[in-house]
Structures are given as C-alpha cells and as structure tokens.
C-alpha cells in the first residue's frame, strides 16, 4: 500500500485553524503519510504538526462550499479546520480517517521516525531485566528463561524472576494452571524486610475445584518461614466466584492455607472507558453550571476508580511494610488492574520509583514487559466514535493515581507533572516505538528495538530531562502513605483541563520555584567556595603571623 493512494488532496490553501487557547491561524494545510500540517508560511508563526495516529475522531460539517472539520485528538484536544472546497474537505477527512487507524504496524510513524537529537543512551537498552531485577531482588530469587520462546506465557517477557528453589518444570506446570499462562512471578522485593509482591492471573480452578500442586509450591516458596501471605484479588467476591463457571476462580483456602485472600474490587474494561468518555465530556463544557459539572464529575466515577486503585495499593503496601507479609496480586487476566496495583504499591514503598529513571524502569517492568496490552487499550481515546472492545484507560488511571500521590508529596518525586502528561500522550500516540504492541513477544516480531526509537532515548537526553524535573525534589527514603479521602483527591486539571484553562499563571509559578531553588543552590556552593578560600587565606596569614588566635 502506498500512502499516495490514500491522499487524494495533499494540499489546500486558505485553511483556517482554530485551536484551544491559541489565536486562529490561516495557512496551507498539507496531508502527508503521517502528519497533518498547517503552516501560515510566515516567519515565527506557529505551525500545526499533528500525528495522524493522534487523531481520535473527526467530524465533518458543510456550509455552502465551506467544509468544517472538527478533529478530536487522543490527548483530548479539539481543533477545527475551516477548509474551502467541499471535495477537498471530504478528501482530507477520509485521508485522516484511514491514516489514523492503519492496521499495518510497520507503516506507522515510529517506523519512519528518525531522531533529530543525538541518542546518547539507547532507551531500548536502558533497563535490561537482568540488571533491573538484580537491583531489586535478594538471594532467594533467580531469573528464569522458561519463557524464552514465549511459549509458556505469550504475554510474559522472556526473563522473569521466580523463587530460586523452584525449577522451570514447576513453573511450566503452574503456568498451565493460570489464565494465559501468567504464573506468579516477582514484581517487587522489599529489601527492608525481605517480603515481596508477586503478580499472576487468576488460577484456573474451574467449576470442579481443580488444584495444582506446583502452583501451591511456587507460591509457598515465596513466603518467609512461619509467615503468612496475602492474596489481593482485584475482583469483587461474586465476580471471582462467577469466574469459576468459566474456568477461572480463586485460590481456595484449603489448598493455600498459608495465604489469606482479600477482595478489593477495581473496575475494568468498558466501565473505565465509559468513565473516561464521560469525564472528558464534562471537562469540555466550560459553560455548564456548577451543579451540572459536579454531578457529571460524580457520574463519571473517575475519581472513584482513582480512589479504589489507591486504596488497594495502600493495602498491599501495608501488608508489606506494616505486617511484613508477602502479597500476591491478581484479577482475572492479570494484565490490567493487577499492574495498576503492583506498580502503584512500588511508588508508595520504593523511593527509587519516584525518580525519573526509577519510574521509567517501573513502567518498563510493570507495564511493558509485564504485558499490559497498550496497543489494544490505547488504540482509541475519549472521543472515539467507533465501537472498540479492548480500549480502557488503565495506564492513564495509574498515571492519575501517581499524580495524586505526587500532589500530596510534592517534594518526594524527582519528576514533575509534565512527565506524567508526556507518558500519557505517548502511550496513545507517539513517534517512538516504546508503547507499540501488546507484549514483548509482539515487539520482537516487528523488531521494534532496531526499527524504532525508544521514548526513553528522547526523555533521558539532558536537555529534555531538565524540563521534566521537579524543582522541589528532596530524596525521600521513606514510605509515602497517600490519603484516599475524597477531599484529598483532585481532578487532574493539568491533563483534563489542559485545553480548557490557560495555565500560564501556573507555569509562571513553577518558573519562580525553579528560580528560587536554583538561586539557593548557587548560594550554597558560593558560600562553600568562599569559606574554603577564606580558610586558606587564614592559614597563610597565621603562618605569616599576621593573624592572632
């Protein structure tokens, strides 16, 4: 397929662009294989470069010979293009529609993108599982390559961390007992007290109460002697019970006597997508009344989901930090709510995860390698009109939860809010390959590592990194316990109201904070320098008997 066939009208003059919070501009609109470009061709005038894959939906309206295109983007931005000529408008609309949902992954932009910056450190190689888990785990764990060919579990990476005492055969048996082969693996090792978080999918107990000795053996091997563990099931008890009929289920107490099961329901799939759609719609109506806004905000349930996830993560963190008990987290498939909980728990417990690199490593470990299906979940965003089955803002909810913790501990995170917004944007549409595909196996098949550039290569370049640093950061080695009271949870205005509210006053405040911090740092080093100089001079003067005691 050639892009040329899809682009019947590559260029239209006299197009007017309306963007939120920006003055309108008039110029020439160009459609390329991957971008929608509008340029006024004037010096210093801002241009529009919109990635086709960033378009969520498109609406056409015609008045006379004028066509009006409303382009709704995955980052919730809505722009309008006034295009002279009905045919041109129709052509452009259909081009965008097709090009924004290309089925062939190798035709997408990341496979064409060449970085305009020097790649100092290749992001694809930044977080190899060996060193990452080496950093995390204690002596009782090992890296297993039982999934080298992605046969034992298609959605797991080739390298997983498991108890040292368990051999690969046992792992394979356990995998057969878990949905999608997702047997329990190490997610986080809490060095402070030797406890750990494991994750898996649901056990295939089924209606007949199957059991799997290997699975039990595997789980028990993670417990410290004489200690009990907790299984946090992210489904409501009745949902978990119903799953039995379809072959799934829960770990029955008789077979897992050392484990206590707790159900902490977190919403999933359609309900989340629906929640996002409602929330974004409510946020984009600046003329609504206060009553209407509050009731829509409530009806969206978004903050309820945030609270549920945070609460569950706090529970897991409590088990680890307060009770000294290991935790297994799973829902049904173990690729959505499970990952929200395990990754957020690490944000709470592990100071490393609150640094830029640590957070990148966390996303890499707990989301990308752990097989969260980004391609399915983030194919469409809040404005999508097409009925799709797999979309859900699972990762976005995780980012929102992180933001909530960040807002309560504004000095404990090395990165700032912009960093989280960036990750949201790139998870939905990107020039980088990082968030493409559903799991490591798929990524290998299309050779992402060699054919595309990693987002981390870009973010970790010194000049970019600087813009994502929090000027208030002071490393905090403690556990950060967030409040989950509704009064403490706030709408993420930096994301959801990003195109509705002018943030220049807020940005200015951050600039001021950066300035104050910078000034303070400079003074400290200046004082140190001057003191040293004075001490040297003093010594000199004393030796020359010019200064008295």
């Amino acid at each position, binding site marked *: 397929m050639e892009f040329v066939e899809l682009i019947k009208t590559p260029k239209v003059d006299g197009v007017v662009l309306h963007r939120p919070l920006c003055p309108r501009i008039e110029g020439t609109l160009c459609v390329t294989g991957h971008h929608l470009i509008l340029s006024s061709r004037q010096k210093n005038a801002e241009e529009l470069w919109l990635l086709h894959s960033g378009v969520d939906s498109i609406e056409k309206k015609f008045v006379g010979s004028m066509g009006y295109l409303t382009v709704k983007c995955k980052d919730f931005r809505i722009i309008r293009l006034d295009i002279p000529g009905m045919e041109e408008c129709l052509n452009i609309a259909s081009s965008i529609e097709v090009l924004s949902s290309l089925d062939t992954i190798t035709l997408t932009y990341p496979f064409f993108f060449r970085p305009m910056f020097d790649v100092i450190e290749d992001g694809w190689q930044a977080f190899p599982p060996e060193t990452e888990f080496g950093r995390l785990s204690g002596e009782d764990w090992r890296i297993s390559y039982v999934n080298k060919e992605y046969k034992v579990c298609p959605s797991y990476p080739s390298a997983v961390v498991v108890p040292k005492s368990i051999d690969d055969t046992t792992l394979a048996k356990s995998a057969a007992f878990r949905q999608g082969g997702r047997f329990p693996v190490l997610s986080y090792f809490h060095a402070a007290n030797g406890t750990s978080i494991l994750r898996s999918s649901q056990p295939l107990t089924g209606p007949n109460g199957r059991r799997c000795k290997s699975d039990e053996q595997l789980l028990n091997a993670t417990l410290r002697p004489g200690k009990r563990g907790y299984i946090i099931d992210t489904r409501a008890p009745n949902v978990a019970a119903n799953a039995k009929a379809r072959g799934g289920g829960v770990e029955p107490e008789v077979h897992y006597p050392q484990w206590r099961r707790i159900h902490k329901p977190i919403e999933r799939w359609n309900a989340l997508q629906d929640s996002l759609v409602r929330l974004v719609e409510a946020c984009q109506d600046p003329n609504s009344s206060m009553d209407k806004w509050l009731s829509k905000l409530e009806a969206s349930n978004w903050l309820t989901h945030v609270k549920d996830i945070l609460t569950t993560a706090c529970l897991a963190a409590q088990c680890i930090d307060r009770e000294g008990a290991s935790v297994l987290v799973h829902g049904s498939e173990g690729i959505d709510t499970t990952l929200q909980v395990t990754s957020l728990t690490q944000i709470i417990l592990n100071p490393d995860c609150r640094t830029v690199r640590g957070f990148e490593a966390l996303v890499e470990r707990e989301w990308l390698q752990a097989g969260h299906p980004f391609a399915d979940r983030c194919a469409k965003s809040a404005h999508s009109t097409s009925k799709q089955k797999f979309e859900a803002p699972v990762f976005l909810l995780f980012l929102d939860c992180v933001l909530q913790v960040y807002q309560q501990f504004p000095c404990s995170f090395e990165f700032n809010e912009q960093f989280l917004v960036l990750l949201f944007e790139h998870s939905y549409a990107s020039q980088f390959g990082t968030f493409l595909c559903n799991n490591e196996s798929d990524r290998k098949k299309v050779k992402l590592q060699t054919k595309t550039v990693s987002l981390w290569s870009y973010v970790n370049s010194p000049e970019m990194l600087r813009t994502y640093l929090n000027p208030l950061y002071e490393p905090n080695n403690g556990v950060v316990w967030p409040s989950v009271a509704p009064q403490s949870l706030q709408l993420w205005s930096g994301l959801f109201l990003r195109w509705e509210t002018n943030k220049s*006053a807020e940005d200015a405040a951050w600039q001021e*904070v950066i300035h*104050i911090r910078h000034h303070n740092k400079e003074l400290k080093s200046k004082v140190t320098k001057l003191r040293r100089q004075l001490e040297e001079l003093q010594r000199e003067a004393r030796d020359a008997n010019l200064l008295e005691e």
Partner: protein
Amino acid sequence: MEHIRTPKGSINKGAQKPHAPPDFFMPVQVENVRLQDRFNTRKPAVGTLYLTATHLIFVDPNSKRETWVLHMHIDSVEKLPLTTVGSPLLIRCKTFQTVTFVIAKERECHDIFESLIMLSKPATITELYAFQYNPQATLLDHGDGWSYFSLENEFSRQGLPNNRWVHSPINKDYQICDTYPRTLFVPAGATTPILLGSSKFRSRGRLPVLSYYHKDNHATICRCSQPLSGFSARCLEDEQMLQAIMRANPNCNFMYVVDTRPKINAMVNKAAGKGYESTDFYSNIRFQFLGIENIHVMRNSLDKLIEVCDLKNPSVGDFLSGLENSSWLKHIKAIMDTSLFIAKAVLDEHASVLVHCSDGWDRTAQTCSLAGLFLDPYFRTLQGFQALIEKEWLDFGHKFTDRLGLTAVEEKEVSPVFTQFVECVWQLTQQFPCAFQFNETFLLTLHDHAYSCQFGTFLGNCQREREELSLSTKTYSLWGYMRKNMSDYVNPLYRRDHPVTKGVLFPNTAPQNFKFWRGMYNRYESGVHPRESVTDTVSAMKDHSASLEDHVRLLEKRIAGVKKLLGKDTTVLSPDQQAKGDSSPEAVDSSNAVPTEDGRSEDNVANAVSDASSESGIEDVQSPLNGDSASTEENEEKQDDKEDTLNSTHDLEEEAEGRDVPETNVKVENSPSGGAGDATDMSLNRLSLEMDSVALEWKAFRNIRQCSCETPLDAFNKKYHCWRCGDVFCTRCIDKQTAIPGHYSQRPVPVCRTCYKHLKLESSLS
C-alpha cells in the same frame, strides 16, 4: 500554661500570657477526658480538660498534644446521648473545627456544657474577648494597627480627589447615613440637594458613592443600596445622581447598574416599597440582575457543606453529590461571575458600574471588593488587602457583629458572607499563584480572627458603632498583630513585577476551575492534607538564601581583609562598593533592614534586576500620593498622614520581605558601625566563629515529627528554622531573634534557644 498554643499557632500566639480571669470565673479542670477522633476511633486520646476564662484546653500527656478551643469560636455545643465511657460533648466551631470530648461524669459534662453556652455567646458586645485581651507589651502595642488605613489616603492613592470626583463632608457626623463612613467620595457634579434626595430614596440612606476609581480610564465602581422605588415611585435627585456618576466618566456614554440579586428577589422587594431602578426613568443605564442568593440561602448552604465535611469515610460519590447539593461552590461561582462582570465592564467597556443588592452591605461588599482585587494589583499586596477590607467591609458597614454571630444576636442575621469572600480570594490565589503577596495562612488567620474577637478590628456593625465603642483605645488591632508576624503570611512566589500577574487578573470562572477548599473546611482533619507543603518549603528556601547572601557579603569582606593583611590584591569587590554600585537610593536606605535587597553578587543579576523593578513597583503604587497635580492642595493638607502611610508602607514591605522584629531599626542604629563587615578585629577565633554561625544546610521539614521540646510537629504546627544551626523548631522554641556574627547586616534573625545561649556566651567572651 504560658507556652500552650492552639493548632496553627495563630489564635493565641499573642495571648501566651494567661489573662486574669474575671472575678466571677473559676478555672475548671476535668481529668480522664477522652478526645474522640473521627478517623482514629480505636485509640482515643485520654487527658485533662481545662476550662479557662477564654479557652477550653485539652492536654494529652502521652503525646503532649494539645487541643485548644477559643470560647468565641464555638458555634454550637451539644450533649450527645450517654455512652458506656461517659457523656460526649460535641463542640462545633466557626473555624470548622469539630471536637467531641467524652467526660466520665455526667454532672461534670453538664457543668462544662452550661459554662460553654454562657461563655461562647456574650449578651453584649463589651463582654467580648477583645475588651479583656491584654498581650504582653513587647508583643503588641495598643496603638499598633489602628492608624494603618484611612479612606482619604486610599482614595488619594487611587488619584482622588480630582475634577471629577470630590470628597463630600455631607456625612461628616453620620447625618445622612449612619452605616456609611464619615468620608464619602461623590461625583463633582452631584450637588448637596442631589445627595440628600438620593440618600432619602435609598434603603437606609445608603446613597450611591464611590468605591473604586480606575485611574487608567476614569471608569468607576460605585455602591449603594436598593432604591425605594416600589412599583412606580421615582426620585429626580436619585436619577440625577446616577447621571452625575455616568458623566464623571468621559469615556463611556452609558453606565451599568448591577443588581447582584436574583430578579425574583428584587421583584419581591418591590412589594415592600423597595426594588430596583427602572430603565424608563433612568436614562442611559444598562440594568443587570446577576443572581447571588441572599444571606439565608448562604447560611443553609454552609450548613450543608459542613455536613458533607463531617461525613465519616465518605465515598467519592457521597462527597461530590454532597458538595453539589450544598450548592456552596455554585454560590462562590455566582459571586465570582458577578465580580468579573463588574471588572470587565470597567476595563473592557470603560463603563462605570453602580452595584447594589438589598441593603448594599453583603453581596455588594463581596463583589465590589473582588472586582477591585481583579483590577488593581495594589489590593493583592498585604497592605492593599487590608485597605480593601477596611474600605469595602468595615467602612461601608458590613454588619460583622451580626453576620459573624459574635453576640447573642438573632440566628437569622448570621451568614457566612465574609467567609465566602475569603474563599473567593483563595480560589483566585489558586489560579494565580504569583499574584498575591499573602498566602493561605494569611487568609485563614484573617478568617479565624474575624470570629475570635481577640482584636477589636472586626467588632461592631459599622464605623459609627466602632467609634462609640472606642475600640481603638479599648482593644487591640488585628492589623497590628498581623504585622508583627508578617513573615508567616508572605507568599514566597509573589512577584510584584510578574508579567503574567502584575496587571489585571481575569479568573477563569468555568465550574471546573473551582476547588473545594479543604484547607478551610477540613482544616482540622489532619489526614486529608498534603503531607509536604510547597509554600513552606519554598519560603524556607528563600529565607535560607537571604541568610546565605548576607553571609556571602561578610565572607567577601573578610577575604578582602585578609588579603590586604597579606599584601595581596583585593580582587573581591567589597560589599560596600557593591551596595553603592547596584542599588538605587531607596535600596540603600533600607539596606540595613533588608540585606536581601542589595547584597546581590554578580552571578545573580537577573534577580537583582527583578528586585530593582520591585522597588519601582512600590513607587508606582505610591506615586499618586506625590504626583497628581489636581490634588496638590489636598496633599499638602494631608502631609502628615501621608508621612504615616508611607512609613507604614515601608515597614510593611520590610516585614514582608524579611523576618522582622520590632527592634530592627533601633538595633541597627545603635550598633556602632552598621554591620559586622566593618568590625576591624579580625582574629582566627572571630573568623571561625563567624563561619560557624551560619548554617550552610537547613534541615528539610520532612520526617520531623517533634520539636526539641517534644512538642509534636504535625501538619497544624508551623515549623521554623534556626538560622544559626539550621534545625527545625516549633514557634515557642524559636522565639528569640538576634544578630548572628556571620551576617554582614547584623539584623536580628530567628535562632533557637540553644543557639541564642551560645551566641550570648560568645559575645560576652569576646
């Protein structure tokens, strides 16, 4: 009891000295009382409850935690049904603190209940706390704060009088309106008969008078009460009055009349012989209803809001639907929208606006003061905000005694009108973090003290009442008190010259931009607040930088000195030269008290520039006092007053910039050389002493759970750094201020008690 403080440290900081209780009153002490916590029900604190003449104090000996309730803050006391452990007493405060004490003996509970009922609602105004409050003379002087503001000076700052707006003596002795101030500014074209006639046609004589004059385009905001128009009455003088207001503005051939009430309310008033201006009678007016509800609706709304805040473990849904049902934010938005309408009319349409509601002292006060805040950056400073409140609220007769329910008034008169205003300002600070010189603590302190009756400032319903009560001689002023603690109230991000916020502020009033103010309504739920405070962290950083800058100046001086001894080239610029080199005369003037202003080294030029322009910012604000030709005569007459204002401006600025103590200037003047840098005795001991006396690192606030005195430091306690050792202390342990050897300026700075002893010892040894 001397060191006992309330949470937030604000209420009785000045009241650390116990008051002599009135003769009839015997302090009561009850042991074995439980303090119930809404969130931590498992382990209630057990301790002793003290009932003093002014406070109810609970002390938990285990955690050393103290809970203070000022009697004046008590909104309601309720005896709950008896439980197995005793009788619970539920106390709700006007500051949104709710406490439940469980008292073992029913009898004792009842006694306390009776006492609190009596103590929290005095029958007459002269029984209020302010008339007994008597702080140590060193803490606060009787006269402090009463003379910071005068309406003449404020209008003079706005550029008045001029040929359009003049001062009218018509209400000099409260003849025509007893709830207005003595000083009124009216259009030059309004004759005495017009004023008198208009006054008679307005509810309670509150005729249209000037509230704010926008110098740039001559548009004004005027305020009044509703006309006594009934269904058809008209008044020629009132119509002429409006014409005069309109004509005083050369840039617009119409004016707005904003009735802040919902139309239906105004219609109802017609039946009572009141109502609104008919466009048939008043020519060239654009009439607008803007729909802010009345005081009764607001009172009910707040009650509902409090219910929401009191919910035990609410779900997000419960909370949001409760918030919606309370309509509180809807009302806040209505007030903001109305104020924005007024400000936009002035700025965008160059139109004058006349604002009224019913009596013109509630909604009118809210909207006029907010519109002023949008339009004039001066009102966003600490000094200007006081002026705004003095002008729109105190002078123009907002009925504080009644609305705050200070005495045993009718419940129907009580309404959170002022609370709403304070919240609107807070909402603004959320949207414009660099635009306000004051911080959230300032707003909360102001709100607390409006209710505390510790100071006379907010007593009385109008100026006339305040004069009759001789408040300025019998009570202390809140403004004086606040000035002593100014450093607690400064917003570290404020920049006078900031391009984004130096001019007009137009907030975004889409409903999504309003937040629930947990810092106010859930202030005492320690669990719901951010665990790390951006404001505190940044403030500490700024203070620390100030200390280091001062230290750098001394180090440079010393290096130059030692080099000279060694016969080397003194390449380091001496601080004196620097000071002369990069600062304007004003900066030199204030250099003793504000070393941060001029002690700039070459590597932070940007900063120096910004500060230089901030100086000029002050100039801008003051220039009308000096420059306006139309008002020279007036100016000459007021020379003395002006002097005062200028001085107080300066003091305020200084105190706002650095941590101030009253004796700053005195000390500096007394010290022989004006700075340690000039001291000639350089010895090794002296030098090491100097270096040791300035902390290079300040401890982070994080993980500090208690002060060295074992007082728990939680979200409620403001934490302070000792400038010498850099450790963190509670306010009681950092009550000393003294100069430290490592600072060039030798201005007093906060130090902990240990360091204070050290410094005293060192100076006595040398």
